[in-house]
């Protein structure tokens, strides 16, 4: 690889390094991963900022995302058009926030957006129900789902409006011991 890459200009690479948590090598590696999803759509020359968007189906089939129950929401949150179709900028942004170098506050902000299914800046009961069903693959009964969602609102809702605002969410998540770990799956 060395210094002789022709995909980006030097300023572009530096700008990406400043704007994400990645080093030069990692950014190039991510570019190649992006390109591997659809080699015929993605040009090898990004110096003139081509406008290329990859459809959600390709993003969702990446091994890092395909087993995640929230992959569709993740793609929607980080894509410009809100539908899950991602440009290279969106792609780099998404992995930068998900990487282990990103701070807790940033992750909490995006986590809130991911769990907010209807995009109204609040996590309401229906959002919680959808989250729970995705987590348990619909294994819980309706009564159990209702009980859990009520308990969550009980626990975390500080301003008592029946739904979780960003402040409520951050206040709760910042104390969670499992929110940020560097190990593979525990329980």
């Amino acid at each position: 690889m060395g210094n002789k890459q022709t995909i980006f200009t030097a300023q572009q690479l530096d700008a990406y390094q400043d704007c994400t948590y990645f080093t030069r090598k990692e950014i190039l590696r991510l570019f190649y991963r992006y390109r591997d999803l659809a080699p015929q759509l993605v040009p090898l020359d990004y110096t003139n900022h081509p406008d290329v968007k990859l459809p959600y189906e390709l993003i969702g089939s990446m091994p890092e995302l395909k087993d995640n129950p929230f992959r569709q929401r993740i793609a929607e949150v980080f894509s410009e058009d809100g539908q899950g179709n991602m440009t290279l900028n969106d792609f780099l942004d998404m992995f930068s926030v998900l990487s282990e170098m990103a701070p807790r506050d940033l992750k909490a902000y995006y986590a809130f957006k991911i769990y907010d299914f209807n995009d109204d800046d609040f996590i309401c009961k229906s959002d919680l129900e959808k989250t729970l069903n995705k987590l348990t693959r619909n294994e819980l009964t309706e009564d159990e789902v209702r009980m859990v969602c009520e308990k969550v609102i009980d626990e975390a809702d500080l301003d008592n409006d029946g739904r979780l605002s960003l402040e409520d969410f951050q206040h709760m998540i910042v104390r969670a011991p499992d929110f940020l770990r560097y190990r593979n799956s525990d329980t």
Partner: protein
Amino acid sequence: MSEGEMARLMEEVEEKKKLIANIRTKPWRMQRRLVVLKEAQEFVDKFEGALGKGKGRKWYAYKVMMMKKWIKFQRDFENFRTACIPWERKIKEVESHFGSSVASYFIFLRWMYGMNLVLFGLTFGLVVIPEVLMGLPYGSIPRKTVPRAEQDTAQDYSVLMDFNGYCKYSVLFYGYYNDQRTVGLLKFRLPLSYLMVGIGSFGYSLMLVIRTMAKNADVGGGDGEEGEFTFAWKMFTSWDYLIGNSETADNKYASITTSFKESIVDEQENQKDENIHLRRFLRVLANFLITCSLGGSGYLIYFVVKRSQEFANRTDLSWYEKNELEIIMSLLGLVCPPLFETIAELEDYHPRIALKWQLGRIFALFLGNLYTFLFALFDEVNTKLEEEESIKNASIWALKEYYANYSRMFNDTDTTPPPMNPADVIRGPCWETAVGIEFVKLTVSDIQVSYLTILIMDFARAVIVRFLNYCWCWDLEAGFPSYGEFDISGNVLGLVFNQGMIWMGAFYAPGLVGINVLRLLSSMYYQCWAVMATNVPHERVFKASKSNNFYMGLLLLILFLSLLPVVYTIMSLPPSFDCGPFSGKNKMYDVVMETIDLDLPAFMGTLFSYAANPGLIIPAVLLAIYYLNSTSEAYQNSNMELKKKMQMVSREGIFSIETPEMRSDPGWMIR
């Protein structure tokens, strides 16, 4: 430019530089970040001139790279450490399907395996290996040889299965070891080592159990979950975003579902409100019924033991009468636990608490079994001790006769005759080996029974239900008998009592610990397979208590109970005169006295004799206990205070979560 304007400009440049450094933490779209970055950089370039533009960047990049390498190293080391823990993946699989209470049994099993491995290492390395390598070989002295009378049958399978024959005269049992004070070039003091390893095993086990209890007490303790945000945390932080494998993902889904179900059960218990008086009455009734049945079984055991003592004097016994004791004890062990469980349904406790009650009750029942076994054993030991006296005299007489015959045959009274063939020497009854054989037989039959039970009650049942269901009138899977649930209490108690037997028997049969290690190892694999293949999760999946100190408490009790017989024999009973490492001494602990007299300098002897004064030891121990008690109370109090302080602080919200940038910059929320 004026001074004020210069200052303002410097400030703005500093701000822009800070913005550039932190732009990656802003929750903006990449496009916006790139644009803002470009503007800020142009501004800084224009007004800062040639003030070392690029110098800071290389250093920063180097720092970031080192930090990334460090984090990666930490992550790899954590992965390696977790990979070293044996059976972790197996247990996690069981946990994800059956819940944390069933998994707690397997974690307990693994812990036991670790402890037994260490005990095995101690025994094997310090007692068995020296005797094998540096001691006399098989057949050289009487205690190491099969007697002439038994030599024909010594190799028979049935004899070996009973641990007689060649098994009896091997390193497995106490009787094989020689009483030479030192062996080999290294002058290894084998009898001393034997005694020390015996006592050291207890000391090590005690230390380990107490240390584990203390560690568990740190982790929260208490039965219920005290977290503020139990359900919220479960919902938002339980998925592991690093999972990239479908099988792992499947397990994770199962474990998340189980974990939610456990918390729901806990929550429902808290929300139940009911008639307190009726509940109390039912609980008292249930306890009364169970105490009655425990008393009944105790009396039954006592009655049967008395009868077996009478039978010992007769010779015309039917098969039933010969085995009556074992039959009654097994029946009790099979019938009472389900009986207790049915009665316990009156009590209507949370499943975790009901499990504790069940464990306690079956424990009381099994103590009866233990009492009978020890009773019978001590009877045997006393008979053998009486036999010894007469045999001692008989063997000395036989030796004199042999010498007399020899000198008569060769008409020569000057040369010393060769020693008698070891197989011909009259042997004492060697009660220690007999006791060791009893323990080994008990352990082996316990293994056989437990494996067979799993095979029949779980596996055969599952096979029958699965295949007979096609041609049966009612639904076998939903109604009777359906698939079995994993019996946590039975298995835990089996493990605890088995360990008690090992502790008691290891002093008389050094090979017993090795047998146990093999048993635990195969048990782990066998039971994991059985659980996954033939059991279904409990109807109400419940979370194991965070501390698991209940199992440890039972183990500690059994440890004390097994220590007592061994200490009694070391202190009071005389060792056999012709077998084992202490033969010829008055009491077993005389080895220690001998070592102090012969091996240690003189002043140590006098020191020990002063220090061993009870008048000195008892006050010292009492003082130590009092001191430790008061310090632990003080620590507990300060813990409570700190916890209260933390709760107070978190409620007042002194922790602020918004960073100053987010608050001052109005455009931080993306629309």
